[in-house]
């Protein structure tokens, strides 16, 4: 359904990236590109290197080989701070929220890089810094409305049920007004209803804000439904890349998922 959409220019291009930890090769010569306003899925069996790929893109891991081209600029590797300030936001496979803080405060941390007033102003919390805080608060309230989490605004996130925590984490990423959003298994461990909600949010984010999304997901139904193009990884290598329908019928992909008869 979405495959016929017009996609923009190339936003991110991963070229020939290899990453290893000691003798373990997590990624081997992986290349793919992501176009603007695209929903790009990365799939593959457990341990295929999907999360490693996201960690390379937002600078948590530094690959030994290859380059990452983002917004036309080529990088040997990214750095987390640089990635964040260039508009790459992410969520984590195992929720990484600030558990002791309220939903609102968690979302406000997402605005961190948008705060222009320097440390001293912030520390004194006087005039301009206070006005700035109010502006950011307004923006965050929009996201709270968008994700329908008004009721848990003041609740410490550690107390929220799993599905809502995932939603708050998405909210924190959105608060940064990202141009590229990395979602690491946003629907893992959810029930059908929660999954449908999350799917709707992902599609709405893409549609309303024009955000490019890279998505890791195990639920094939979801992947085939919402993504424009799919990369398939297996044992750190790319084994397929294309439209959902092409990937589904690719024999190597079927082998990787179902195993081969010997």
């Amino acid at each position, binding site marked *: 359904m979405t495959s016929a959409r017009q996609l923009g220019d190339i936003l991110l291009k991963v070229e020939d990236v290899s990453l290893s930890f000691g003798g373990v090769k997590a990624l081997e010569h992986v290349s793919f590109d992501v176009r603007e306003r695209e929903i790009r899925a990365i799939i593959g069996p457990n341990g295929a290197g999907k999360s490693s790929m996201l960690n390379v893109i*937002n600078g*948590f891991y530094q690959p030994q080989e290859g380059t990452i081209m983002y917004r036309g600029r080529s990088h040997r590797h990214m750095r*987390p*701070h640089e990635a*964040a*300030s260039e508009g790459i*936001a*992410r969520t*984590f496979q195992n929720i*990484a*929220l*600030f*558990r*002791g*803080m309220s939903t609102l*405060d968690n979302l*406000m*941390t*997402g605005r*961190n*890089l948008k*705060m222009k007033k320097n*440390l001293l102003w*912030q*520390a004194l*919390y006087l005039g301009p*810094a206070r006005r700035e*805080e109010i502006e950011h608060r307004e923006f965050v309230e929009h996201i709270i409305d968008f994700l329908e989490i008004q009721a848990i605004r003041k609740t*410490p996130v*550690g*107390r929220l049920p799993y599905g809502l925590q995932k939603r708050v984490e998405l909210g*924190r*990423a959105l608060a*940064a007004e990202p141009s590229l959003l990395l979602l690491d298994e946003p629907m893992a461990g959810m029930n059908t209803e929660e999954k449908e909600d999350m799917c709707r949010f992902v599609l709405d984010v893409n549609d309303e804000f024009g955000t490019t999304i890279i998505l890791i997901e195990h639920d094939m139904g979801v992947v085939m439904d919402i993504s424009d193009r799919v990369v398939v990884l297996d044992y750190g290598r790319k084994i397929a890349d294309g439209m959902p329908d092409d990937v589904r019928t690719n024999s190597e992909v079927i082998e990787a998922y179902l195993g081969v008869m010997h």
Partner: protein
Amino acid sequence: MQVLYAFLVGPFVQMGQAPVFFAEVVINGLLTGVMYSLVALGFVLIYKASGTFNFAQGVMVLFAALTLVGLMEHGVPVWLALILTVAVMVVLAFAIERLMLRPLINQEQIILFMATIGLTFFLEGFGELLWGSNVKRLDIGVPDRSFEVGGMLLNQFDLFAAAIGAALVAGLAVFFQKTPIGRALRAVADDHQAALSVGIPLKTIWVVVWSVAGIVAMVAGIMWGAKSGVQFSLSLIALKALPVLILGGFTSVPGAIIGGLIIGVGEKVAEVYWGPLVGGAIENWFAYVLALVFLLFRPQGLFGERIIERV
């Protein structure tokens, strides 16, 4: 029966009979309590931001006081010595971030804790190397005089120290709870990776926190040093901060303050009213017993974040 009366009723009768004296005891307890809070605060700051217990906090108190006294002995005026000491603590914070925290990023908390033990020995030795190991007198120009108000005997220096401590503590509480940096600090405390992913600069946050902890240590060092002389035992007041932390919770600034006050008042009152019954010296162990009771019944402390485990 008589024993029970002496322990459970007698002290309260005494309190009721001499309310002015009781008020004096409480106020003096509060004044001591502020000083405990001050030391505990240094621990809380670092625990919040690095998630590690800073074993070196006590030595940082000593080191700051030694630096200040050492500078003053070389004829530096008080105000300049204060500024220089603050500068030294900030430089120390930068060095700690660069040489200790950065190489150990993403390591287990216990490893960071071990590193702070190393830091303790380093600062102890380095302080002595620079300024010698003699007991030094610290005079910051506030007289240690007592005076009477409404029949209560109060100490001028204690009042001064409490005022400074209270101002510092109030400032820090607002800083943590209300400002964006405070929020960033709490974020770093909760999850390093997530903090990085939203672009919070870990290094800056660490330098800020260790600088502030250094300055808090300096203030504590001045207050305690001026009372009892600047010497090695100054680093042991950190031990008094432990029960304060257990009472208040390791992650709570208001907790450190109230914990300090409770212990200050508690041990003074216990000493004066129950001390004679057991032969005195309650002050020395009261705080630790109270901490033990808290560990049994409320391990997260009065204000600590609730420990929620999902199974």
